[in-house]
């Protein structure tokens, strides 16, 4: 008998830790799946606008986590917080040996784990999608970590609200309120000095925060949630003043620093150049791997400009305006327009835009009509617009004046084409010397 009992004791499975049941069962997995689905749908719906750019991916993830994840985490926490009330097990738990704080954390932390896991999987999927089409740069890890800390704080704060408020609509109301609150804090167009307190900072692809901003944001959000948890559940409630003081200090620091929280990303300040062409072609270091594509797209244009003088030295692509002797490369950002998923959407149109940036009389009050034909001939020769044929047809269908204008344009194009190589190079050199002149007499005729 003794032998049998001993053997049984040896083979009996070890009882699981109580936390295990909290982690693998109940609402946690559902909340994690809801966060994952929400973030994936929101990201997937406009993948063309972030896929391929690491900074764009970071911004999109950050925005979705703040605008959707935080309200959802608050609501999930609030729903979960009302569990004991719905099960009517509050009194039973109150008789447990563990204190209130331990009981709150045992039910709250598994939910935190699932919500963060849902966000982490969504972030990994977004990173994979961008890595597959990456144009340069590298992943940004700190921002998703900060977002995860903010999400965890939201779950815990929601948990406390759920314990306190016995109302079926508390959770959706909390979510809607948080959504509206964060939206107003972030996008209020007035003098909004409290914007740095928002977990969302929108549209900063060329900028990165100072090193301590993620820390301050974590302390701000975590301090508020910690204060709520301690005030609700700890034996000595006055201790809640500590996390509250930390949150207020971090919040004050964020608000006082304001715009100083952000500075231009060092990698966005650099550019990568191909010096074998005329003009040279530079793209921002964030899109380093796009340089061969841009060079290919502009190869027709740069080939025709070989040996021509008075041209800008290079197409530049840095934040801010071009320096002297430089012109701006047609915009690569915001991605989703000329660049989609790591590829130039329309190389012909891109080349046309690059050609147009070499000469411009946009500042002229009233450029002479005959300049129109000359400029158009150059445009046609270097890199015609994909819509050129349509424009010509429109002119031909309109009144007498437009038909005459079209005829001038066609004549000028034919004259430029008829020149010998050398003659054309000399003429283009003279033309580019006056590319921004408004005075007809300065511009060489065709």
């Amino acid at each position, binding site marked *: 008998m003794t032998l049998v009992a001993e053997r049984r004791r040896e083979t009996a499975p070890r009882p699981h830790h109580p936390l295990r049941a909290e982690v693998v069962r*109940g609402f946690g997995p*559902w909340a994690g799946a*809801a966060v994952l*689905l*929400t*973030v994936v*749908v*929101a*990201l*997937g*719906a*406009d993948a*063309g*606008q972030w896929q391929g750019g690491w900074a764009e991916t970071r911004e999109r993830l950050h*925005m*979705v986590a703040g*605008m*959707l994840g935080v*309200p*959802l985490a608050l*609501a*999930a926490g609030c*729903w979960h917080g009302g569990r004991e009330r*719905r*099960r*009517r097990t509050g009194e039973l738990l109150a008789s447990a040996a563990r204190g209130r704080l331990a009981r709150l954390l045992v039910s709250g932390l598994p939910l935190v784990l699932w919500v963060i896991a849902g966000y982490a999987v969504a972030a990994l999927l977004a990173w994979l999608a961008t890595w597959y089409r990456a144009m340069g740069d590298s992943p940004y890890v700190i921002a998703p970590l900060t977002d995860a800390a903010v999400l965890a704080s939201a779950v815990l704060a929601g948990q406390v609200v759920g314990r306190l408020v016995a109302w*079926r*609509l508390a*959770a*959706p*109301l909390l*979510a*809607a309120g948080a*959504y*509206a609150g964060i*939206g107003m804090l972030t996008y209020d167009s007035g003098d909004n000095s409290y914007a740095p307190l928002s977990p969302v900072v929108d549209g900063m692809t060329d900028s990165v925060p100072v090193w301590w901003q993620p820390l301050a944001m974590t302390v701000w959000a975590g301090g508020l949630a910690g204060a709520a948890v301690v005030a609700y559940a700890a034996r000595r409630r006055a201790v809640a003043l500590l996390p509250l003081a930390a949150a207020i200090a971090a919040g004050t620091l964020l608000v006082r620093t304001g715009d100083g929280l952000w500075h231009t990303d060092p990698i966005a300040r650099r550019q990568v150049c191909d010096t074998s062409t005329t003009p040279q072609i530079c793209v921002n270091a964030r899109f380093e791997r796009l340089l061969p594509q841009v060079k290919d797209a502009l190869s027709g244009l740069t080939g025709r400009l070989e040996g021509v003088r008075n041209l800008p030295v290079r197409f530049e692509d840095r934040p801010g305006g071009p320096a002297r002797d430089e012109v701006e490369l047609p915009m690569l950002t915001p991605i*989703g327009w000329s660049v989609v998923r790591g590829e130039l959407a329309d190389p012909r149109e891109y080349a046309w835009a690059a050609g147009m940036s070499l000469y411009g009389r946009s500042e002229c009050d009233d450029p002479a009509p005959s300049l129109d034909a000359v400029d158009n001939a150059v445009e046609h020769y270097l890199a015609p617009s994909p819509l050129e044929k349509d424009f010509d047809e429109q002119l031909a269908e309109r009144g007498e004046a437009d038909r005459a204008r079209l005829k001038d344009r066609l004549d000028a194009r034919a004259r430029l084409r008829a020149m010998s190589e050398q003659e054309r190079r000399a003429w283009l050199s003279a033309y580019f010397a006056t590319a921004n002149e408004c005075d007809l007499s300065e511009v060489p005729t065709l």
Partner: protein
Amino acid sequence: MTDHRRLDARSAPALDGPLLYARSRTVPRALAALLTTAALAVWAADGLDAYVDPQRRVPVVALAPLFAAAVIGTSLHTASDELDRTAVRPWWRRRLVHLLALTALTAALLSVAVLGHASVFGPPAMIRNTLGGTGLTAAAAALLGARLSWLPAFGYVSAVYLGSAGAHGRSSPVWAWPVRPGGGTGAWTAAALVFAAGAALYVVRGARVEGPRA
């Protein structure tokens, strides 16, 4: 027996079936929440200056019906499920009237918020979103339980609201119905189908029984 009935009639106001049903589903509280939602929507839409840009109405047109749908969804909860199942009469008529009446009232109340200057995000968009949102919560009430019925609708609508900015695909009116302008056929069809499916599911099956472990 007759004495008992007389006694009851004297001691409490006589409540017939529909009123008792409404009370058991906390419909009065849901009505109060819907009225508050509509008032808030009117206040929010008023401050948007939508004549500058009709797109400014999108937050109100997407979020107010969403919250109203959450109110309707949670009102489908019954605290006396086992007792209800012993009833002789079929429940589907009451469920249908309950859902349709609250949806119609919400659509009418919320449309007031976006009346006024002709705008692409006017009453039609509000009515469509009320239908779609209520359809989602009704389906969730049947599948998940009424008290948590707001969760899938919140996830879906808010994800579409953020993600639809860059959606230009041919299928986008169908899945992005909560943020489309009012007149589009695709968005209307999608929302109407969601409502029909959700309402049918709820009316036939009722809200999912929520055990003590919910």
